[in-house]
């Protein structure tokens, strides 16, 4: 088999159960459009102890080829073992471009890898394009707390690497009949040489049940919610709509709700069908993380609040008066339909 050296790679991050993290599958989407622009293939990279589930997802979401590295040393992520294996693959196949999710894991791995390869890395991209003029990927990312966008090229070094935030792209259409070429590589790293040892894992109590990135509807609360009791009202609206509760940084930092709910630059990036911002003024860091939602609805007492600048719909008013009215209207509507 002849190896095409001008391929685009997507790193398929896996969780502790060996399932693919959404972000890797999402990246197959821009991966396709970018590789087509360059006449290349999209190659998924899966590293883990048990990779079947992630490989099946990578295949169904349209990878042309999947390179698998398996071993017990990859059961949990470690910088040392993963950087070693990934670097060995890159050295062997010389891909043109690599996309990695900007998760905690991706942000730990990507710079280590880029530095080992002495190449350029662009972090936290929110937009990817093919720059026809130079034949490079144009990586667009926010800087200065989201106040400024920068378009970055890596013209003279390969591979060109970027990390991309979860939920920036939508997953491609799933096609379970799609077949990818499977390549297995035996690369091993001695467990004793992993310099970070796990001592204890502490799981957030409600983390399992909160899936902000996959939520269709998010009802978020901010400073205007006023305290933990106020979040009960936010929860009621979320329940009425079948949605998930989000929160601004102020609400999380004030201890009103756990950080698993945080939407923003230090929290999750989301793109639900409906985002309802309640008592959130709209700091640029928050806006950057939710502005690609399909429909944004804002409720705020301050008509000058920045959130109204990006909202599709809004009410200037007290959320504690608006939300109960809103819930009553929902109930009324559902009753009407049931009759």
């Amino acid at each position, binding site marked *: 088999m002849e190896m095409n050296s001008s391929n685009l790679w997507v790193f398929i991050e896996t969780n502790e159960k060996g399932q693919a993290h959404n972000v890797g599958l999402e990246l197959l989407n821009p991966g396709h459009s970018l590789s087509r622009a360059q006449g290349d293939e999209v190659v998924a990279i899966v590293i883990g102890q048990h990779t079947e589930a992630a490989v099946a997802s990578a295949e169904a979401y349209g990878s042309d080829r999947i390179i698998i590295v398996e071993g017990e040393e990859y059961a949990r992520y470690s910088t040392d073992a993963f950087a070693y294996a990934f670097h060995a693959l890159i050295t062997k196949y010389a891909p043109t471009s690599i996309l990695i999710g900007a998760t905690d894991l991706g942000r730990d791995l990507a*710079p280590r890898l880029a530095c080992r390869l002495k190449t350029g890395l662009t972090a936290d991209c929110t937009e990817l394009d093919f720059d026809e003029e130079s034949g490079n990927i144009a990586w667009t990312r926010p800087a200065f707390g989201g106040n400024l966008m920068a*378009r970055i090229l890596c013209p003279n070094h390969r591979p060109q690497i970027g990390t991309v935030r979860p939920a920036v792209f939508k997953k491609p259409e799933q096609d379970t009949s799609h077949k990818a070429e499977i390549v297995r590589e035996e690369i091993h790293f001695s467990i004793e040489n992993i310099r970070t040892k796990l*001592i204890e*894992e502490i799981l957030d109590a409600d983390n399992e049940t909160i899936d902000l990135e996959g939520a269709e509807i998010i009802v978020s609360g901010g400073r205007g919610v006023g305290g933990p009791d106020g979040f009960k009202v936010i929860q009621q609206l979320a329940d009425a709509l079948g949605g998930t509760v989000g929160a601004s940084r102020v609400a999380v930092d004030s201890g009103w709700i756990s950080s698993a709910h945080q939407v923003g630059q230090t929290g999750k990036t989301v793109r639900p069908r409906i985002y309802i911002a309640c008592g959130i003024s709209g700091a640029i860091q928050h806006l950057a993380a939710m502005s690609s939602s399909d429909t944004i609805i804002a409720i705020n007492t301050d008509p000058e609040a920045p959130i109204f600048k990006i909202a599709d719909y809004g009410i200037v*008013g007290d959320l504690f*008066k608006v939300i109960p009215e809103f819930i009553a209207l929902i109930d009324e509507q559902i009753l009407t339909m049931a009759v």
Partner: protein
Amino acid sequence: MNILICVKQVPDTTEIKVDPVTNTLMRAGVPSIVNPFDACALETAARIKDETPDTKIVIVSMGPEQAKVALTECLAVGADRAYLISGRGFGGSDTLATSYILSCAVRKLEELEGKFDIIFCGKQAIDGDTAQVGPELAEHLGLAQVTCALEAKTNGNTVQVRRKTERGSEILGVEMPCLITMTKTAYEPRYASSRKKREVAKQEIPTLDENSFEIDLTRAGLKGSPTKVKKTFTIPQNSTGVIFHEATERQSTISLFELLVKGNILQLGVRYGNE
């Protein structure tokens, strides 16, 4: 114990506004501060020093002469020594070039101050937000790394680091020497006393430039940077939404609700059908 902390002086990005007319950043009058994540790193080191008093804390910053203000602030809250890395050939460096320059400087600092057991960085600087310099510095120096740490305590020859993960947190043990990047800690950075501020105002902060240590200048600055900024722009924010501000919240809510149902945005039928 010998600890090095890399700090950056940054504009307070929460104070930056975009000029609504020209769509450019309004930087005038924006205060310069010690990058908040670096302040968390300094506080974590200071707590290690509280426990192990014979700890020395060295601060290094790469930047213009005015970054000495940030270094002096760090000295006032408990750092012992500070160095500025500043040179003509360093300007325009991306993260790979910056981390390379820092790695060369660290080797020189180890000649002056002794080997470092822990190098702390902030997780990321709030102006660039890349979170790359820490791990890249670790790679240049061949050190083990832990990123996004919430807490770090020493225990014999190892550091126990609590690290934020997607699912909560994990405690990792890592042998020294190592590099740790700190995220926002649960504890607030301590303040400097007025007496300490007066004391450190006179403390000399040496500047190291390209002649002070061994470095391949082709790997520094603009020409040593693989990434190039093609252009920067701001996103214009023009209000086009339908905002209700009627006499009562009830009226506004009814108007909004009608619009949402008519536009098929609220698909309550779908929800009902699923039940």
